[in-house]
């Protein structure tokens, strides 16, 4: 007999809580060991957004906040699949997106970087994977921006993502980076990921999805925690 259980976080690819080069982790990382618990229905269920109707322009950040024209910057299209670790695609799962504008400025009121806001760009959207676990959205390539972690610290270009998967163990918040970005080698947030995991966060340029005379294409796949069969415990 066997039963399916969800794999743990793969600590060979996920960053640790404490990563001192990223200074904000020092006072915010749990200091005591995590308590390992067996999964109950509390863990093996989670919010299902399959019946939520997304807005018609939620998947197009180049259009969903227009006031008087097109947003500035380089139009891109980002697409890919959401998989589990066993390579099965995950249909009808919510992907939430947020990012800086082309100048490296977030709409967020706390962001005081001296770069212009774009009246026609909010920088947030969402998509639902289709029946094949596929997603695609349009946006503007986000700019790099400075931050206060250390002298002359700059975040590489990145897009933030939030995903759910089938239950709360598969929850994932992450960032997608762009190929060839020279800032990656200096970024303590990216470098917080162990070497084995870093390439997994860098999208690939994709000429196949690039739309002629319109938008450059990038491919980025997500892999959420999967299941494995374990021997069923009998008393």
């Amino acid at each position, binding site marked *: 007999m066997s039963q399916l259980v969800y794999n743990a976080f793969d600590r060979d690819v996920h960053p640790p809580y404490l990563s001192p080069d990223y200074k904000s982790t020092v006072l*915010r990382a*749990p200091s005591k060991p995590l308590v*390992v618990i067996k999964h109950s229905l509390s863990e093996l269920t989670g919010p299902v957004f399959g019946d939520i109707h997304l807005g018609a322009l939620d998947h197009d950040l180049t259009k969903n906040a227009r006031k008087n024209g097109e947003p500035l910057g380089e139009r891109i299209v980002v697409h890919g699949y959401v998989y589990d*670790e066993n390579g099965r695609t995950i249909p009808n799962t919510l992907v*939430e997106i*947020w990012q800086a504008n082309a100048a490296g400025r977030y709409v967020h009121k706390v962001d005081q970087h001296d770069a212009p806001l774009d009246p026609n760009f909010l920088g*947030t959207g969402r998509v639902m994977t289709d029946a094949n676990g596929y997603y695609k959205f349009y946006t503007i390539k986000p700019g790099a921006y400075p931050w206060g972690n250390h002298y002359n610290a700059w975040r590489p270009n990145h897009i933030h993502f939030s995903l759910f998967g089938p239950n709360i163990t598969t929850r994932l918040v*992450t960032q997608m980076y762009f190929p060839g970005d020279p800032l990656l080698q200096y970024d303590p947030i990216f470098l917080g990921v162990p070497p084995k995991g870093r390439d997994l*966060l860098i999208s690939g340029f994709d000429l196949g999805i690039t739309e002629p005379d319109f938008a450059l294409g990038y491919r980025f796949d997500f892999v959420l925690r999967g299941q494995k069969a374990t021997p069923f415990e009998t008393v």
Partner: protein
Amino acid sequence: MLQTPSQTVGPYFAYGLTPEQYLYDFKSLVGNQLVNPLDEPEAITISGQVYDGNGNLIPDAMIEVWDAYNRRFGRFGTGTDAQNRFVFHTVKPGSVDGQAPHLSVIVFMRGQLIHAYTRLYFSDEAAANAQDTVLNQVPAERRSTLIARQTGGGYVFDIHMQGEYETVFFDI
């Protein structure tokens, strides 16, 4: 396939994940009302603050709660309340898998490269709490960090990332 690594939610999640709470012009998919307190006579209010290792309030955390009994989900940031509280309107869940009533809690913040899981139990469920498998796995002196205190108007559940009262976080 290898799992996609986690990265921090960062300081600027609000207009993407909690836009209506922070008054951005984008529709929120989820908010802090698991039930509408005006319509639900059993509604309770849960609030709390999140503290860093120096005992300072964290104003840019995002808290998610999952009620597996009623299959309801909520999300709230600590950046809009003057005292940096998160607030949820819900009902106390029933028992799932024979466990004491609880909510699953997921904690996100700038300065956290991967989210943290905890649980919220209820102080007026002492008998059920005493029998709960998960609570009994936690060292006795730390169990109180998982139990929301009943107050006049609801329950208070503070989250301490470090220190003497460090909340118990789970590897699930």
